[in-house]
């Protein structure tokens, strides 16, 4: 029998990609001034700091954390709600299958993409400059961030709806609004709710640091305690925030799993 000879796959392209990635990582570290020896020499200092933060944390400080934590969650809830509610109609306009006028959804998408690229922290510092410090600026920042996130994901979902159901509604004489209500909404609702919950999860985490730029929430007391070098309190805030975020993430993602 003849020997079957299969030519070896050409690996040149793959090897080039691997080399480039290694080069990119090493190069970036080099230019960023990253130095492994520096890390090792500072490990001792870092260890001591961790010791002061967590062994033990200041449990008596918990009552002072609760109120700002609640404010943080409240900011996240309001920010998410406002952003998500505005996102829904905008997503409908931005989808290319419901309204087929290009001049509307193309610019709209550009705007949405811009909103989504700006980190909530940057938005917050902008709004603190405009509205002054406080939770209000934080809420607006979170709303805009949520709006960008949820509207983008939702319009993509709208574009992927089963057209058969839309066609059926059109065939029985439904106008655009009825098509939206009876064929599109039922299809996208679970995903939309899921995106909103995901936005909430992200917002709780974002809201926890917004105080750093003066936009309310737990970040503010975090900053104060760092300034006073009360590391055991800072440790307590971190632990507390960690557990709250963890619980919210667990609850929210389990709801999301059931939705879709």
């Amino acid at each position, binding site marked *: 029998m003849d020997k079957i000879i299969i030519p070896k796959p050409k690996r040149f392209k793959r090897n080039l990609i691997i080399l480039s990635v290694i080069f990119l990582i090493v190069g970036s570290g080099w230019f960023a001034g990253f130095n492994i020896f520096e890390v090792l020499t500072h490990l001792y200092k870092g260890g001591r700091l961790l010791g002061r933060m967590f062994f033990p944390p200041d449990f008596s400080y918990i009552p002072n954390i609760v109120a700002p934590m609640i404010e943080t969650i409240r900011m996240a809830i309001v920010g998410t709600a406002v952003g998500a509610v505005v996102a829904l109609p905008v997503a409908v306009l931005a989808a290319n299958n419901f309204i087929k006028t290009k001049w509307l959804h193309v610019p709209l998408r550009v705007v949405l993409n811009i909103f989504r690229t700006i980190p909530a922290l940057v938005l917050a510092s902008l709004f603190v400059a405009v509205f002054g410090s406080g939770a209000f600026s934080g809420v607006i920042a979170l709303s805009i961030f949520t709006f960008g996130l949820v509207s983008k994901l939702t319009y993509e979902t709208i574009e992927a709806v089963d057209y058969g159901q839309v066609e059926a509604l059109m*065939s029985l004489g439904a106008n655009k609004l*009825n098509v939206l209500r009876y064929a599109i909404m039922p299809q996208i609702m679970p995903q939309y709710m899921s995106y909103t919950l995901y936005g909430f999860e992200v917002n709780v985490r974002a809201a926890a640091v917004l105080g750093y730029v003066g936009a309310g929430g737990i970040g503010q007391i975090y900053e104060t305690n760092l300034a006073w070098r009360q590391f055991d309190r800072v440790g307590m805030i971190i632990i507390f925030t960690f557990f709250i975020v963890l619980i919210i993430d667990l609850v929210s993602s389990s709801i999301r799993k059931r939705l879709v």
Partner: protein
Amino acid sequence: MIEFKNVSKVYANGVKALNNINLKIDEGEFVAIIGLSGAGKSTLLRLINKLIESSGGEVLFEGQSVTKAKGKELINIRRQIGMIFQGFNIVKRMSVLSNVLSGRVAYNPTWKTILGIFPEEDKQIAYRALQRVDIIEKVHNRASDLSGGQQQRVAIARALAQQPKIMLADEPVASLDPITTIQVMDYLKKINVEDGITTIANLHHVDLALKYATRVVGIKAGDIVYDIQMKNVNKEKFFRDLEMVYGRSIQNDDVLGANNG
């Protein structure tokens, strides 16, 4: 009742779906349209309620131009034309009742239908439609919980709720097993005979056309090549005639009975 006058359809990608179709369908007929896939059957059906726009010619519904109709006029035509599909196309994430009630949207003000408000008499119409296809006991189920045959019956109920003059059926049984196929076809026939609703169905299986239709129209590459009233039609001759429509002999796949064993 429906008239095609020199109707043609060329899709944007250059595909010629229909060439110069002339066809007249009378009240109460049960017309089966047969032909190979891609022959233009679905296009023909969708021109009747303007889900697809024609490239030339005119379609008339009770003397009124569907081709020229727009806005409220088009909605007024469409609500009198029920349609069911191969993929059922009921809204799976809604209840059976909501699906059937959605057949009434064109008879109610939009602000009410958006809020999901339907008058009691519309609900009665919906219940009766569900009763008609023997699925009233599923009225509060989610549509996605139903089997394929049940979903198609809900789709028929939704169309019935429109109180239509015509029923269009685009490959209504192509996704169903042989037993459910017969059930669904029986319902379509019952509605056609008892309510006098003109029915136009694209069918894949030629023996279904033989059994249920009062008239068979054959389409080949966008042309009507066959049109016969089914009274006193001889089965052997019918099958032989269809070879012209299919451009080949009738095979097992073209017949439901053969699949059924």
